[in-house]
């Protein structure tokens, strides 16, 4: 052995022992992006919520692990008034706040914290609304909270009533979302007195399973187990996020034992990961949909038969194979199959170019030229829109339709694709926020969302469909809501404002030493239940 090799081996042994901490049980997650901040309210990125809302905070109600069902969180129970306009929450008692060098709580969690957490987002006059200049509360606005919540009343220290301006069935699902995380009013007053309000966003204090320890920007986030956690305390002592933006590098780190679990592997690496004896992969259908939205206000796409004919000309199996490398499934409905009220009785338009061609001719459509918009970014629901557009182009050519593929910068794409009179069909998709069908059907396909500022990129306004979706929003009866949504999906399929393309599959590779990780249909990464074998 040469002396150089000896030095290298000695040093690599040192490096390896330093890669895996030995003393406390430390779980390392190779996260994909830096958090924007640690206050969940002003942000929208999943990577931010994974680093703030999920480890550090709780909400009044929470999503039951691995599902989109609601379960009690900081609220032990709740009652809804008969008219659906009042939600009264009984708060959990004895819930301890975290502490840090600047703050030690003198009281447990109570109603004041709930009111503080919502009012700072609700009211522009609230002293904490602009605690950082230029801060905005996008999710609070997007979920229509300003027009929905008319008042929040503190009944006593452990009872809070939310008064709504209209019945809204998805309300509980909405307040289980990260933006509705409960922050400490007492911590806020301590920070205000110290003149360091911005620390609410830098050094979060919550009630969650992990306490925040430190963040080295763009590198590492550290958390410690919250021994006083009101729920089941975590099995690991320390949680570390090693921020690793490149998917190939994440995989190398996982293989080298530098982390235990990684999100978003490159589809091309999946075979190799599955073959590695030290790794295992969990998979789950993503709560998303990828689609091609026709402009239903422009001829000939205002004719449902033309849209259906084009849908029949499309070989969606081939798209799943080529673009998703099998890591997805063909979509037939606008909501994913894992969502309640999914109408499995619906039969997808069969791939049949001959019939499609005949149908187009019957409608008098010959020599049709159209644009297909391909988005410039990757999303879980659409890893390669350009390739998808090319496959659609080939398929449509077989029925005599000429396709020109266009693309724009992402911000412009989002903007121009919602402009009235848009030329062409748009590839886009959606990932669910809260597991409620309304979050797909109303946001993407209602008449209201076909207006400027909406997200109905087919500009499809079907009164019957919209009425069903709106009616479903006003009742708490899940069986009744299911029936209404199933009916709405029948209308959707019949009218075909979109070609429903895909629902992607989400994969999470991890070390075989990891146990207890539960995949979230909402795409969250939470580690309160994980354990690692020694």
């Amino acid at each position, binding site marked *: 052995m040469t002396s150089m090799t000896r030095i*290298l*081996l000695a*040093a*690599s042994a*040192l*490096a*390896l022992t*330093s*890669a895996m*901490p*030995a003393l406390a049980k*430390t779980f*390392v997650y190779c996260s994909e992006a830096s958090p*924007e*901040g640690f206050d969940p309210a*002003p942000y*929208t990125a999943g990577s931010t919520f994974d680093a703030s809302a999920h480890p550090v905070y709780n909400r009044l109600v929470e999503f039951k692990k691995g599902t989109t069902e609601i379960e009690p969180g900081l609220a032990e129970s709740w009652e809804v008034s008969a008219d659906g306009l009042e939600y009264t929450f009984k708060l959990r008692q004895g819930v301890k706040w975290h502490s840090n060098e600047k703050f030690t709580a003198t009281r447990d969690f109570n109603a004041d914290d709930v009111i503080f957490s919502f009012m700072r987002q609700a009211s522009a006059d609230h002293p904490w609304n602009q605690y*950082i*200049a*230029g*801060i*905005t509360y*996008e999710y609070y*606005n*997007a979920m229509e909270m300003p027009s929905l919540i008319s008042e929040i009343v503190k009944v006593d220290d452990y009872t809070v009533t939310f008064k709504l301006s209209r019945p809204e069935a998805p309300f509980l699902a909405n307040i289980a979302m990260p933006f509705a995380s409960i922050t400490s009013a007492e911590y806020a007053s301590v920070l205000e007195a110290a003149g360091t309000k*911005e620390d609410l*966003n830098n050094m979060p204090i919550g009630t969650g399973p992990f306490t925040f320890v*430190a963040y080295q*920007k*763009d*590198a*590492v986030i550290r958390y410690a187990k919250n021994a006083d956690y009101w729920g089941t305390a975590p099995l690991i002592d320390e949680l*570390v996020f*090693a*921020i*690793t*933006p*490149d998917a*190939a*590098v994440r995989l*190398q*780190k996982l*293989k*080298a034992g*530098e982390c235990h679990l990684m999100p978003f592997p490159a589809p091309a690496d999946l075979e190799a990961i599955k073959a590695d004896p030290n790794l295992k992969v969990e998979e789950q259908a993503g709560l998303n949909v990828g689609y091609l939205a026709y402009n239903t206000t422009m001829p000939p796409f205002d004719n449902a038969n033309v849209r259906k004919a084009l849908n029949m000309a499309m070989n969606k199996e081939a798209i799943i194979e080529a673009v998703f490398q099998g890591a997805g499934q063909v979509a037939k409905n606008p909501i994913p199959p894992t969502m309640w009220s999914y109408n499995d009785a619906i039969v997808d338009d069969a791939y049949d170019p001959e019939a499609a061609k005949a149908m187009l001719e019957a409608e008098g459509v010959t020599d049709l030229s159209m644009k297909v918009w391909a988005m410039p970014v990757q999303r879980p629901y659409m890893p390669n829109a350009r390739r998808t557009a090319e496959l659609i182009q080939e398929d449509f050519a077989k029925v005599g339709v000429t396709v020109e593929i266009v693309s*724009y*910068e*992402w*911000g*412009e794409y*989002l*903007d121009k694709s*919602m402009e009235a009179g848009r030329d062409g069909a748009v590839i*886009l998709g*959606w990932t669910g926020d809260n597991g409620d069908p309304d979050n797909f059907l109303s946001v993407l396909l209602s008449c209201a*969302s076909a207006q*400027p*500022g*909406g*997200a109905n990129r087919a500009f499809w306004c079907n009164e019957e469909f919209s009425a069903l979706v709106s009616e479903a929003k006003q009742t708490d009866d899940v069986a009744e809501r299911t029936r209404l949504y199933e009916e709405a999906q029948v209308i959707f399929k019949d009218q075909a404002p979109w070609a429903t393309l895909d629902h992607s599959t989400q994969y999470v590779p991890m070390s075989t030493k990891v146990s207890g990780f539960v995949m979230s249909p909402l795409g969250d990464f939470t580690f309160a239940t994980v354990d690692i074998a020694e």
Partner: protein
Amino acid sequence: MIRFILGKLLYLVPTFIGITIIAFGFVRILPGDPVLLMAGERGITPERHAELSALLGFDRPIWVQYFDFLGRLFQGDLGNSLVTKKPVMTEFLTLFPATVELGLVAILLATLIGVPVGVLAAIKRGSVFDQVSMTAALVGFSMPIFWWGLLLIIFFSGMLGWTPVSGRIGLLYYFPDVTGFMLIDSLLSGQKGAFASALWHLILPSIVLATIPLAVIARQTRSAMLEVMGEDYVRTARAKGMSQTRVVGVHALRNAMIPVITTIGLQIGVLMAGAILTETIFSWPGIGKWMIDSISRRDYPVVQSGLLLIAGLVMLVNLLVDLTYGLINPRIRHK
């Protein structure tokens, strides 16, 4: 000498003003609107869009925004990031030491290897060493950094297990930032093994970042040496019976160093460009990755102020290079 320095400084004023215009204009010329990007697939109502634009000051005429930027700049205020809402200067100062540390090690590596290789190749012109090293330099110069970095990670970290995959130090070590330079902070922390871990984490990224400058420096040194070796005074020195070492070391090398130092100075710009990719691959928390993220999110304040800070530094380095000529070659400073 003072006049020489003042003259150089005077040149910087119009350059700096030009850079403020370019830095301000660059990110605004790119299509895309930060408010729309914040809203994503959901869309945003025209009213809300107007409200947010007004809140962020984007509704004002572009020249008002520019002079506002300039006015704040002279008060030392670089604005706040639209994404993290933190002051740009704070973020820059947090991340900058990581880039400097990586850049310094890389340029040191490139110089310490590049200059001797270039000299040796020039002395042994036409030899196997000359041909092999210059071919290697050409390959290095043409190396796509992203691919090269990944290749090194897969080979040395993945297959051999010799080096860590990414990051600045083993996760076992945790101590507060003092200087921001991991090599120094790890020593100051007094934690056993911390310095070795930090050094070990620097190896692959600095090799990757040094590759292109190393190739350029080696080639530049070789050609500068060849030129000088043909000069009369070198022939005279040889004729006087001086040793080869003395001729090369004292007479040739010092004169050949002028273009080489220029090249090393110019590599600072190349390093900044390389840092963007290197930092992304190695999850290195520096300003290269920060700029890239900010450009894709159209984070105007970060991009414009970040560009300004980086350009300012490159200007400073070039000024230092100019001043170094003055020291090495008196003719330049008296011109």
